[in-house]
């Protein structure tokens, strides 16, 4: 084996070991790397009222109720729902059927008391005319339902 070959194998082995180590570490701390939990995760975990966390999902259609400064809405991941109460200014992209991430704590009654609400944008980019055409042809909902 020449010295060049030895160095080549050394670098390849090193990269392989480093990649494997990174993969193991990332899998081990997987739970802390997620930015938010889904309503299903939160139900399964039985989180206490003292832990701050983030919940993410879609704002359920027709669930937004505004009472002065206080906004109530329901976050859904299409299997489980979670009621959220928030007092403050909502981001511009906050609307029913859109993704949202709320940060706060659970209260004793099973409602999520949010202190901050962020809008989550999806990966779709299209002009307004296209969405209207899709809605008219009835394909818009079909695409939404697939998610």
């Amino acid at each position, binding site marked *: 084996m020449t010295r*060049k070959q030895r160095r080549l194998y050394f*670098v390849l082995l090193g*990269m392989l070991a480093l990649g494997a180590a990174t993969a193991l570490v990332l899998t081990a701390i997987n739970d802390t*790397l*997620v*930015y938010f939990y889904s309503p299903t995760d939160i139900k399964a975990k039985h989180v206490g009222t003292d832990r701050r966390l983030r919940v993410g999902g879609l704002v359920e259609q027709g669930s937004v109720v505004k009472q002065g400064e206080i906004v109530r809405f329901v976050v859904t991941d299409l299997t489980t729902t979670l009621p959220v109460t928030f007092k403050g200014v909502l981001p511009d992209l906050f609307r029913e059927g859109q993704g949202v991430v709320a940060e706060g704590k659970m209260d004793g009654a099973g409602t999520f008391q949010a202190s901050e609400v962020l809008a989550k*944008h999806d990966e*779709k*980019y299209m002009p*307004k005319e296209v969405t209207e055409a899709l809605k008219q042809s009835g394909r818009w909902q079909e695409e939404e339902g697939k998610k």
Partner: protein
Amino acid sequence: MHRFANPARFLRLAAAIQPWTAAATVLLIGAGLYFGLIASPADYQQGQTVRIMYVHVPSAWLGMACYSTMAIASAMALIWKHPLADLIGKSAAPIGAAFTFLCLVTGSLWGKPMWGTWWAWDARLTSMLILFFLYLGYMALANAFDDPTRGAKASAVLALAGFVNVPVIKFSVDWWNTLHQPASVTKIGMPSIDPSMLLPLLLMGVGFTTFFVTVLLVRVRSEIMASKIRAIRLMQIHSTPGAVASGEVVG
């Protein structure tokens, strides 16, 4: 591959390629800006803010492509000891750092009106910030030694070790829940981006790439010149005794 490791051949090749990539950059970014800022529609959700994407996304691509170039060059420098590979790695770093910085800044400007926050510690944003710090660390390490060859070796190892971050950035949005949206263009099947918006994005993407190649060639050429000057000065020191003592030649 080994043929191009010869600096003289590289200089000839670079001089031939450079005018073409420079012209392509002007044309592609010009067309990209026209389609991106004027001839493309506003988004159904984001409105005019969508236009930030035409700078943000290509910057992110190039930030990662630049790092990959640096990592490959570093591997070649460590294994085959090509002097040119060291120079390519060293020259690519500031360009990649600039792209990554641009990506972070434009992303932040987009995030405030869309998400409602300038910054979030989610996996995509954090791994991109780590990439920026890797660039800074690489540049600091490469220039930390009086002997450039020692700096080159240490920074090449850092570039290779940091390369594990690149797939993490790319797949962070698939592996974990993130505030950042998943990929639109490289999605399996159809890209979920309208053709009228995909065109300026791709024009800018290719334009940024030719810009990167142009600037990289300029920087590598000047690095070759600098190392030639260094060699000539060293020769002068050795041929004229007493030159160092009198302070005539500063290396």
